[in-house]
């Protein structure tokens, strides 16, 4: 079942150039109705239920109804993302509530260290990647005797 926007919760990301869901949707499905300042999914048949718009929405306005085989009618699975964790609220149709919280990590754009601090000794003549073998933690990269690269 595709994502849908609850118009009561959506604020159109307060007239920014692009809404968060427009930015993240891999299928370019989310659009903003600038008159009403509400986002919506323009082609539900193309939606993969990837949950990207659900997770990124700052007002929790986007929801997905799970398929009935694992999310029966009346039940829901809702994520809430903060800067260091994501919490999934699972509501069963008998009213039982369960919450699962997992840590998440985000590296700020431009802050990733390409070599990860590992020694870069490889040369272009070698099949090793540029941080190998240091990044593997092994003295040398292993391969099977008689294997494809032997």
């Amino acid at each position, binding site marked *: 079942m595709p994502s849908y926007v609850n118009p009561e919760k959506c604020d159109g990301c307060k007239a920014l150039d692009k809404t968060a869901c427009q930015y993240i949707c891999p299928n370019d499905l989310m659009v903003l109705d600038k008159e009403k300042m509400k986002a919506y999914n323009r082609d539900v048949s193309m939606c993969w239920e990837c949950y990207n718009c659900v997770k990124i929405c700052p007002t929790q306005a986007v929801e997905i109804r799970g398929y009935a085989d694992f999310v029966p009618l009346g039940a829901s699975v809702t994520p809430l993302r903060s800067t260091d964790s994501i919490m999934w609220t699972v509501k069963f149709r008998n009213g039982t509530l369960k919450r699962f919280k997992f840590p998440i990590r985000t590296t700020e754009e431009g802050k990733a260290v390409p070599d990860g601090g590992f020694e870069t000794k490889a040369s272009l003549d070698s099949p090793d990647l540029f941080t190998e073998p240091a990044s593997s933690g092994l003295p040398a990269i*292993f391969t099977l005797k008689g*294997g494809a690269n032997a």
Partner: protein
Amino acid sequence: MPNFETVTVETDLLILGGGMAACGAAVEAAYWAKQQGLKVTLVDKAAVDRSGAVAMGLSAINQYVGLKDGVNTVKDYVDYVRSDLMGITREDLVANIAPTWIPPYTCSRSGASPFGKTSKATLCTRAAGSS
């Protein structure tokens, strides 16, 4: 259909897609390209933040081998991939990629692997420049 703006970008190496494999290829390519004065460009149809299957949470933890700490062997990894692909796999190729892939976020977690400790695989060292 929206009217997309066309932007022309000249590049030496074009990487299509921004998932985990493409980002890895871009990091590797950029290291060598910088030395050669070449330009690398990675394009994604949407946002790299959530591009590809791994960013959505698929199959990343399953790839933990932990060779350096002796958590699993290459044979464990090959067994896992073989059963995951229902027996249809080139085991020599799988074995050769297994040890090089150690996700940083699993390194510090002991017991995070789906495999148990089993028999040791026979390995030899790949000589530099042998490919």
